[in-house]
């Protein structure tokens, strides 16, 4: 049965996407511009036998999400920049103990309290490197309300498949933008359920993995009585500082991303094949870039768009291939220049990369991208 089309704001689409993906636990703390996600979850979760709780702070909500996840529930929290900073501690814990969960960051102007009601893309790097230590993470960056719905569902699938927190990253504009969404139940292949350990207890090693590098989880109550710790641990889950075991754990954690790249990566390109100017943009800025490409093509400039829907790990190979034939690369973003650093690292030799930044609380306009692109190929 289809729910049909609904007019929803991005934050509502996120909440409904989560429930469609099987999310049954939400812990959060009020923060603009993400609070509507919590409000929707508070209303919707009881209808599906789920649990909503507003915790005492951002740190506690992240901790509760990890607790619920290890208890066996699909779990989510949502926040914005200041809260995302506070969540980094337990986000790192979730990475270390391989607790699947989804963390939404609806970006607002920063640094610090910044501009709670204005958009930004200032957390692109925090989303990748916010928690301490070398770590894997997946970050998805939808660009429409409809895509927020489907990418939230994909975030849960990736989290469960990879036993990894997945960050859903979009800005205030998308959070509050109302668009038409088909809130249909996802097809079965879009849903991934937890892989629980089934071997006899004597044979179970909580952090031993096969080829896919993803260990089966011990469900509390199933008789495994496993130990979970944020300390560097061996395959049994017990603390270790033995160099070979330490390296083995980190190799496996970090290796998850490379091993599952085809599953994780998602890219959209628009007229990129023959583009002289390749525009790289994510989220709301990619919408302006799409309009700019249309305008540039209309006036004879061969422009194209490369839009990473999966922002991290950055789709390196696809980008390199796409950039080979470009004369120049333009990176518009709503910050002081974050994504451009990654593009400079990956761009082919001799292809100039130019950033187009804006951090005054206004989105990057198509006109600005058109003008910058013309200048590049002028």
């Amino acid at each position, binding site marked *: 049965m289809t729910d049909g089309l609904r007019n929803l704001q991005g934050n509502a689409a996120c909440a409904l996407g989560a429930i469609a993906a099987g999310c049954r636990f939400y812990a959060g703390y009020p923060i603009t511009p993400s609070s509507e996600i919590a409000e929707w979850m508070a209303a919707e979760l009881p209808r599906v036998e789920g649990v909503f709780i507003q915790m005492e702070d951002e740190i*506690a909500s992240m901790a509760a999400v990890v607790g619920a996840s290890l208890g066996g529930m699909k779990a989510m929290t949502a926040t914005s920049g200041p809260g995302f900073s506070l969540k980094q*501690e337990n986000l790192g814990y979730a990475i270390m103990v391989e607790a699947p969960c989804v963390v939404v960051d609806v970006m607002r102007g920063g640094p610090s309290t910044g501009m709670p009601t204005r958009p930004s893309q200032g957390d692109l790097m925090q989303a990748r490197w916010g928690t301490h230590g070398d770590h894997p993470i997946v970050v998805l960056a939808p660009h429409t309300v409809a895509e927020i719905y489907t990418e939230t569902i994909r975030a849960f699938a990736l989290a469960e498949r990879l036993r990894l927190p997945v960050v859903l990253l979009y800005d205030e504009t998308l959070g509050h933008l109302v668009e038409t969404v088909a809130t249909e139940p996802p097809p079965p292949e879009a849903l991934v359920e937890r892989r629980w350990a089934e071997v006899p207890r004597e044979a179970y090693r909580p952090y031993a993995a096969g080829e896919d590098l993803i260990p089966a989880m011990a469900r509390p109550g199933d008789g495994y009585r496993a130990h979970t710790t944020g300390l560097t641990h061996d395959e049994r889950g017990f603390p270790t500082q033995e160099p070979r075991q330490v390296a083995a754990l980190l190799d496996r954690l970090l290796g998850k991303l490379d091993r599952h790249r085809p599953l994780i990566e998602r890219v959209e390109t628009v007229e990129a094949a023959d583009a002289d100017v390749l525009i790289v943009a994510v989220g709301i800025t990619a919408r302006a870039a799409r309009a700019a490409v249309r305008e540039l093509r209309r006036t004879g400039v061969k422009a194209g768009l490369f839009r990473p829907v999966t922002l991290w790990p950055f789709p390196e190979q696809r980008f390199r291939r796409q950039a080979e034939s470009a004369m120049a690369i333009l990176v518009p973003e709503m910050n002081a220049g974050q994504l451009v650093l990654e593009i400079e690292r990956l761009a082919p030799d001799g292809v100039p990369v130019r950033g187009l930044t804006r951090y005054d609380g206004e989105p990057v306009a198509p006109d600005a991208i058109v003008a910058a692109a013309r200048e590049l190929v002028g």
Partner: protein
Amino acid sequence: MNEIALTSADRFDIREYLRLEMFPHFLCPGCGHGLALRALLWAVHELGIAKDRLAVVSGIGCAGRLSAYVDANTFHVTHGRPLAFATGLKLARPDLTVIVITGDGDGLAIGGNHLIHACRRNLDLTCLLLNNEVYGMTGGQVSPTTSAERYTTTTPAGNREPTFDACKLAEGAGASFVGREATLQVPTLKNLLREAIAHKGFSFVEVISDCTEIFGRKNALGNSPEMVLRQKAGMRPDSWGNRVDRPFRPNPFPTGVFVRKELPEYRELYDAMTAAARRD
């Protein structure tokens, strides 16, 4: 101390509740935390809680390390956050008995906010706070419960800050069960913990423990037996009418059960109040 009569049927063998492969443990000689863990596992045993249904959540510090030794579903989480983590775990899994082990730094300093709100919420958790007056794991820094004028590595001229009464905080924040005991009397502590775990709702138990190697040595408080016996000098149990008021220990402490109230349990209340939505 009264002899505790045990029949063979309820004889408690702590080894049945420990991960023996984790031994030798890493606690210092004379540390009181082992006595507290013994009392806790004894209480679990007497209540007949199956190890598979037991979850032990602990934070960071010496107290935080205890969960690893328990043969149960154990979670050693981030510093100060075990109550917040346990809240999520218990909401997801009401079928588990969830016990939190924290310390005076973990539970009263960095995790103080979580303690307040866990008390207020009354979710069915048991919190065991091991108070040894010091950050032992990091080498002996001052904590919120360090007694007046005691020396620590960060109070080289003596502690200037007033101490923190965790039980009064718990009571003020609305906990439905609050009690305190010391490691001096393991069977009494066991009885208190048994009641706390059986209590429906949030229960808070502070255990006066001793850090011999670091805090005791720094303050010339003697060896472990001397430190444990010194607890007696400061202890003012309910059963004595709290009349013992000669404060040999710098901060004399009442023991016993201070709060025992029947209040609606959080999850039951949540389910009842959202029943209408669930019927939609």
